[in-house]
């Protein structure tokens, strides 16, 4: 017997999400069991099972942290667009006068 991790997806627009796990002898049985354990109220329209032994992760997950400043990867870094627009429009007027 093996642990299978269970993933379900509500609809076509959504990603699969982890929702639990089951113990089963193989993937066929895992599907049969997961359906009733996790989708019996129609919580999803799509179902995956993956053997836990086929799932891998970093032994030290702190490598996933952003250690240094990466603000330029986020839209919030460009929040002052209104102010910059006004400044650019001022510059245009200034050039038109001169």
């Amino acid at each position, binding site marked *: 017997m093996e642990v299978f991790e269970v993933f379900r997806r509500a609809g076509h627009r959504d990603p699969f999400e982890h929702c639990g796990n089951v113990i089963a002898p193989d993937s066929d049985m895992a599907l049969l069991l997961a359906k009733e354990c996790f989708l019996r109220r129609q919580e999803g329209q799509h179902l995956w099972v993956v053997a836990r032994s086929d799932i891998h992760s970093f032994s030290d997950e702190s490598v996933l942290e952003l250690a*240094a400043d*990466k603000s330029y990867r986020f839209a919030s870094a460009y929040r002052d667009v209104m102010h910059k627009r006004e400044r650019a429009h001022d510059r245009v007027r200034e050039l038109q006068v001169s």
Partner: protein
Amino acid sequence: MSRAFEAVVTALADDELILGHRHSEWTGYAPHIEEDVAFASIAQDEIGHASSYYSLIAGAGHDVDALALGRPADAYRNAVICERPNTDWAFTLARHWLYDHADDIRSQALEQTSEPKLRQLVTKIRREERYHLLHADYWMKRVAQGPVEARSRIASAMASAFAEAGGLFEPFELEQEALEEGWLPVASPVLRTRFLEWATSALDELGLPGATGREETAPSEFVASSSGDLIAGEGSLAKEPAVVAEGGGRRGRHTDDLRELWIAMTTQYRENEGATW
């Protein structure tokens, strides 16, 4: 801030900037699409580290860009290995692996500095560098233990990269002052010995010939034999350890490769003095 502090931090920043610039040249061209994305992050990390180092020594106006892009080419203090063109993925990997391990040894020592701002920064940078080491180690292993052509290419690239890696531990300008002032914890020659010890055993473990003792770079010297083993071309073995050149980068002695990089990197900045972007 002492002159020695400024000199040492400039060299650290320049290494990161120039190597980050080279790494970023792969963006859009790396030999595997997923790797393109991963390597672009490493390039950004190095440029970000450069920016942080420069900010430690930037003047009251905090103009990091004037330091990064506004100096003449002979004012850069990066090690020569950083300015070499990417050439191909093999050289890029060899340099990435050597540099990030050298940087690990260097920053481990620097983490003991008595300068609080430098210490904080180095600790932060080291957290990000762990991914670089995992990435570099994985790739080296995969390529060095891979098919014959991969092994032969990485062996040649390693030979030429390794010959210049010692330049990363060429003493900094004003290093003696820095040691006397007490904030630079370990002298470069000591770190260089640590690096060589690490490299000798790491290359040996990978089955690469880099540390077995060769003098000059000649990428074609290692060829794959019919059995698939890498054999050295005749006469390439030397008695002395392989890291030779001191480089000169720490004293501002660079190659035409930096000149070319500098023109590409700084012209737009220099031609628009006072402009903001």
